[in-house]
């Protein structure tokens, strides 16, 4: 009687399946967060909470400003692989001293202690609440020495991104893990993706290990300009590239998604920049001191001979924003198109 009519599934439901699978496939994993036992604020632990075998590893915590992050780090030091689901990426700023301490531990102990812990947090605009809940925190987190910072820009990639980020199998004596943050753009959390593509172990769509998730992805190919983007701005970037491709005359734009923001590997970015010499960088949050500045700085140093136009950064305005102003926190596709046309015609 049941026919496969539902081709799409909300991102949060897809993530709930990934989380249950992650817990099922390695019993070092445990899940922390507010109300995880009741399914979690975003429903991400709903599937796990209904599984009696997994419930014991859902560790609900009292509300704290900073110690919950250190607590998770302590669990990792004890040999667990904690996954911490935060209500907002702002919670990572609130707990910054703890996060800094965790990220510093492998250095402080000269590699003797490992911190296989993952923090997952909704980031940037999307919920319409403004304030902290519209802020993109990557420009602050990228300065935490020793932290690994990942994000994701395409809604269909979100489950795979979580799956990969929760993999700490590369841990070995003398090869300590760094704590990891995965920022999930709020708009992607509100979206949905293909229902089939869950995280069942052995499912061909999913990377089995972190190594299988590339630090950057080429999503469009084009010789006229190179567009760098990540997180919530990627959607606008792809729309802009597609609009350019459809224009007359067409502009062919290479689009590069950055998945890992820290540590940053500039070499492939520089190579992509040199290939066209016409460069646009798009990201959420303010332009001033945004992470896009580092890319521009790298290109102005290492790709100067190929540069034959200004490097344009298309970003959000400077915040904070009220709920009704959230759209100002991210760049629009139109603004990105303008920047592309600008540099190509320069």
């Amino acid at each position, binding site marked *: 009687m049941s026919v496969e009519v539902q081709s799409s599934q909300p991102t949060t439901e897809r993530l709930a399946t990934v989380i249950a699978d992650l817990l099922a496939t390695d019993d070092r994993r445990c899940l922390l967060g*507010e*109300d995880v*036992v009741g399914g979690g604020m975003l429903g991400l632990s709903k599937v796990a909470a209904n599984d009696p075998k997994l419930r014991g590893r859902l560790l*609900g*915590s*009292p*509300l*704290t*400003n*900073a*110690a919950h992050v250190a607590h998770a780090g302590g669990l990792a030091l004890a040999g667990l692989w904690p996954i911490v689901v935060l209500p907002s990426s*702002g919670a990572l700023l*609130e707990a910054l001293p703890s996060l800094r301490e965790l990220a510093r531990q492998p250095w402080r102990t000269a590699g003797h202690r490992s911190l296989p812990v993952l923090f997952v947090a909704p980031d940037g605009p999307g919920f*319409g*609440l*403004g*304030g*902290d809940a519209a802020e993109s925190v990557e420009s602050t987190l990228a300065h935490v020495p020793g932290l690994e910072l990942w994000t994701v820009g395409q809604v269909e990639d979100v489950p795979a991104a979580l799956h990969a980020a929760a993999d700490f199998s590369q841990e070995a004596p003398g090869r300590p893990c760094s704590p990891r943050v995965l920022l999930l753009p709020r708009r992607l959390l509100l979206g949905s993706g293909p229902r089939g593509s869950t995280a069942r172990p052995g499912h061909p769509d999913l990377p089995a290990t972190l190594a299988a998730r590339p630090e950057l992805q080429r999503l469009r190919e084009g010789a006229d300009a190179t567009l760098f983007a990540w997180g919530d701005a990627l959607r606008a970037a792809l729309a802009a590239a597609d609009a350019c491709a459809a224009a007359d005359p067409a502009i062919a734009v290479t689009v590069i998604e950055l998945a890992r923001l820290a540590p940053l590997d500039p070499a492939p970015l520089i190579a992509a920049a040199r290939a066209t010499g016409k460069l646009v960088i798009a990201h959420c949050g303010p332009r001033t001191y945004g992470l896009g500045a580092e890319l521009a700085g790298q290109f102005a140093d290492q790709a100067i001979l190929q540069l034959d136009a200004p490097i344009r950064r298309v970003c959000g305005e400077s915040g*904070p924003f*009220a*709920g*009704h102003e959230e759209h100002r926190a991210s760049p629009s596709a139109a603004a990105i198109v303008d920047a592309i046309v600008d540099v190509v015609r320069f």
Partner: protein
Amino acid sequence: MQATAWEPEGVECLLDASGGLSDPAAVSGLDLRDYYKKLVAARILDLKLGRLQLPMWASSAGEEAVSVAVGSLVGTHDWIYVGNRDAAVALTRGLAMPELIRQALGHPDAEMRGRNLPGSIASTELRIAGACEPLGMSLALAVGQAHGQKLFGRGRATIVLFGEGATTSGMFHEAMVLALAHDAPVVFVCKSQLWPEGAPAEAGLLGDSVAERARGLGLWTRRCDGADVLGVHRALGSALHRAHEGSGPALVEVIVTPMHQDPPAERDPIERLRRLLDARSEWTQPFQDVVEAELHNQFDKALARLSAETRGVA
């Protein structure tokens, strides 16, 4: 009357479940009918705001004893740091309904241009500061504000409202420590939500009562029952009086019973005071209807005018 699982422990009782007043002298200066009107207004405001379908909205029905006591007792120069369910503080203190609604709607023309946190109503003129995002942050700001008031030697005080969930935060602890170290005229008002089946550990209730924990640090404290409107009024009045006098910080814990949990009627703070008034023949149904209608009208008119303006602009 038999105590139910809903009755909080370790509280002094002034107005009991059947509306009996154990110490009439304690409320001698208070116009009880007027106070009742304020409580009803607070309840109706919550009802009306609830119908607006605002994002992140949470009802404060059952917490009126706190809002009305705070709004009535503070001096003109005192500051109040509110949370997200304290709209009735602004109402009681006299914020005009149109502005209150603009803020509730996050309207760009509101005093704070829609930048308040959802549910939080502020006013510079009335010295009401809105909520902060980090847990417990407004407690530390309030301590500084109170400390500053003291340095100017003005005999003024600051009240800060928060919930039991904040008491597990480091900010709560540090704010109490700073208040004590500087002997700041700040009154911490903790609205502790209790469920009959007992709150989960995650909700922030650990060890004994919040008031008892604060007392362990050296704070003057009171623990009262939010259904006992007059007890809350008395406790908060004492705390504020001490602060104004320069006797230092205080914490008042109020056990609030959310009305949406369908508690027995005597857990409703408004019903309790109604029973007292009724016993004194100071309550009638027409009186009730008039009080309610007044607030309904005020709210509806203000909302209608705001909608008209907004349409006019658009």
